[in-house]
């Protein structure tokens, strides 16, 4: 239904006047939905495939997995700059989606070779790194700046639906075809191709005049964006908050320990977070448009703090389960898309992609670093101390950002 309302750039303007979400955003949402089904299908079964299907050691799996995060971070900034320099955001995003789609077939072809698998997974991650920033820049350029929060909310909600359905589809297939990992990869490939087709057919590129000189859009110019006071502040605070946000696994682990949840239900906990995120992404986006995106972003971290406090003992039983998952979901609804909506208007159109890539990379590296730190603290001082440290650090950072983290615009 919504996809049908996708239209050319001209009628997008009509959409803005009527206060509707731009067709381009809905189209990008649909692309993300099917692509997320595809990628989450693979994510869900990949460890099983490597260890049970191919007989890799779980330790080797850890090495392959570590390869992922590094690749994404580097490629993201590079892809963002290219998209800006050529003013071809749709093309760069499309290449990203295409590479990831091809990688799904590569998984089948690589069979038992560790080297080939490593390359295929790196290609898959490269595709993901390439597409994220141009996609968010397209959302930002296609939407009315006043309702950017809502636009990102709509996109992230659609994206989360895909993340919801992917693992279910994968395990259903694996149940139907015992040991049929190749079937999962092939069906995932079909979804990925559909994503590329939808992108090609319904997403309109937002091309701005070519930059006067190539030096106007370069890696250097991308980093030069940090000279803008507000954007620099957003980046710095996002990194600081990223550093004190420990991984989601920890939230579920604590919940399980506290409530003694039967193992067969443990895997359902993330669905609680995703469900809340899914329902609240749009309302929180609207709230952000009205009361300030930065405020909502900070409020999201307060919500995360609430979740941590509940987890370390402020609540128990069903109350703990419901409130902590709700607070965790609210954190996502208030931060993920909202941060992009907050940064979007601060970036000049010709450097939109580069700036977003920079911000996302900074945040991702900070989160990666924090999960390593948290793991080290756990090993050195035990779980109790590590959790207390994480809680104190988050409280301090949230307080600091609330007091000093004012963004003028």
């Amino acid at each position, binding site marked *: 239904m919504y*996809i*049908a309302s996708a239209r050319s750039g001209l009628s997008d303007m009509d959409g803005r006047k009527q206060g509707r979400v731009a067709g381009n955003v809905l189209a990008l949402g649909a692309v993300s939905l099917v692509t997320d089904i595809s990628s*989450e299908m693979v*994510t869900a079964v*990949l*460890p*099983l495939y490597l*260890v*049970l299907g*191919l*007989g890799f*050691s*779980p*330790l*080797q*799996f*850890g090495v392959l997995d570590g390869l992922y995060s590094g690749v994404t971070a580097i490629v993201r900034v590079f892809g963002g700059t290219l998209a800006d320099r050529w003013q071809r955001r749709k093309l760069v995003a499309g290449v990203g989606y295409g590479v990831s789609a091809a990688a799904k077939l590569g998984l089948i072809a690589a069979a*038992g*070779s*560790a080297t080939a698998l490593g390359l295929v997974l790196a290609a898959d991650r490269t595709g993901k790194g390439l597409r994220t920033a141009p996609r968010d820049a397209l959302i930002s350029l296609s939407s009315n700046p006043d309702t950017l929060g809502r636009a990102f909310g709509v996109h992230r909600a659609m994206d989360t639906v895909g*993340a919801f359905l992917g*693992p*279910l589809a*994968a*395990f*259903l*297939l*694996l*149940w*139907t*075809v015992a040991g*049929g990992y190749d*079937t999962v990869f*092939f*069906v995932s490939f*079909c979804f990925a191709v*559909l994503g590329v*087709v*939808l992108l090609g*057919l319904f997403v309109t590129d937002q091309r701005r005049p070519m930059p006067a000189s190539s030096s106007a859009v370069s890696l250097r110019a991308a980093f030069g964006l940090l000279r803008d006071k507000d954007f620099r502040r957003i980046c710095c605070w996002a990194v600081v908050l990223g550093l004190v946000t420990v991984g*989601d*696994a*920890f939230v*579920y682990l604590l919940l399980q320990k506290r409530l003694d949840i*039967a*193992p*067969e*239900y*443990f*895997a*359902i906990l*993330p669905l609680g*977070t*995703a469900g809340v995120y899914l329902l609240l992404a749009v309302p929180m986006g609207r709230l952000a448009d009205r009361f300030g995106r930065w405020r909502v972003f900070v409020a999201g971290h307060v919500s995360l703090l609430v979740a941590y406090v509940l987890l370390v003992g402020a609540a128990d039983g069903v109350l703990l389960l419901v409130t902590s998952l709700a607070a965790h979901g609210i954190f996502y609804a208030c931060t993920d898309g909202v941060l992009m909506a907050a940064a979007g208007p601060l970036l000049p159109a010709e450097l939109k992609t580069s700036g977003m890539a920079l911000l996302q990379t900074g945040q991702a590296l900070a989160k990666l670093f924090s999960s390593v730190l948290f*793991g080290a603290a*756990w*090993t050195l*001082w*035990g*779980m109790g101390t590590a959790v207390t440290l994480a809680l104190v650090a988050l409280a301090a950072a949230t307080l600091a950002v609330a007091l000093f983290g004012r963004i003028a615009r």
Partner: protein
Amino acid sequence: MTKRILLALLTTLLLAGAAITYTVHAMGERPDRQQADASVLVDRSGAVRLDEPGRLVFRNTAPGPDHGKVASVSLADPTGPRRISGLSCDRFYVSAGAGLCLASAPGPLPSAVAVFVDKDLREVRRVELAGVPNRAKLSPDGTMASWTTFVTGDTYTQPGTFSTRTGIMDRAQDQLYSNIEGIPLFLGSERHHAEDINYWGVTFAQDNKHFYATVATGGRTHLVSGDYDTWDARALRENAECPSLSPDGKRLAFKKRVSTDGARPWREHVLDLATMTETPLAETRSVDDQAVWLDARTVAYSLPNERGGSDVWGAPADGSGAPRLLVPWGASPAST
């Protein structure tokens, strides 16, 4: 616009058709939908009984309707005709006339059941588990049961998180530990804390108190010796996975990672617990299994065969001789 919508619908239909065709074809390849292989001899006259001595019990992996069922052959003539039961398991173990069957259970997320069966394979108790079945074992008198499942898809935002879940059940006290990850672990003299601790492959001693297992943490695997009564585990050495205690309790069969790259990097070894010396078995192919001891001198394990199934092999525990094919089209061996 109409053209684009039509084009989108058409590609969707085409892709859905491709996906469905592939899936249906793959379903048709399922081993239990194949014609039974006539070369696999079946003894339809006898039932699988766990209290009958001298039998090798295993999971039948021959293509055909009986794929995945628990079966048995005579230990004296393992390549001879097999008796097949109606019980389907992914992993099976037998001790003192009782069995432990680990089987996948239907559901939107991978889940499994551990089913305890009596000598006639009748269910006496079941425990619901999360994850994909991987290992199952009983102590020599059948009192202590242990199993491992692989769990994935735990989180939606942390790609590729992956863990094992190992449970222990004390059948005498009817006490269940669904996840032993919390057991105090000592590496050297230091108490070790970490968020990445994973256990797998437990084997219990005759006294139902001492056990051995593999633990992975910080990118290394350790062989640990555990004590059920005092509830702690101590690392003995590195790189020894899926231990299996010999009948005399003095040796451990285990798989050692001998290659750092590529799939199937294992070599089966036997560790002398008194001297801590290891002996590689004559089997040079990669054994990815928790082996079993058929007697004091023979270790049995399964290996994938060239036709997409697996066979049960045996090798002398002292590293001499050569591996011998015991049961074609079999997996998860155990002896009565």
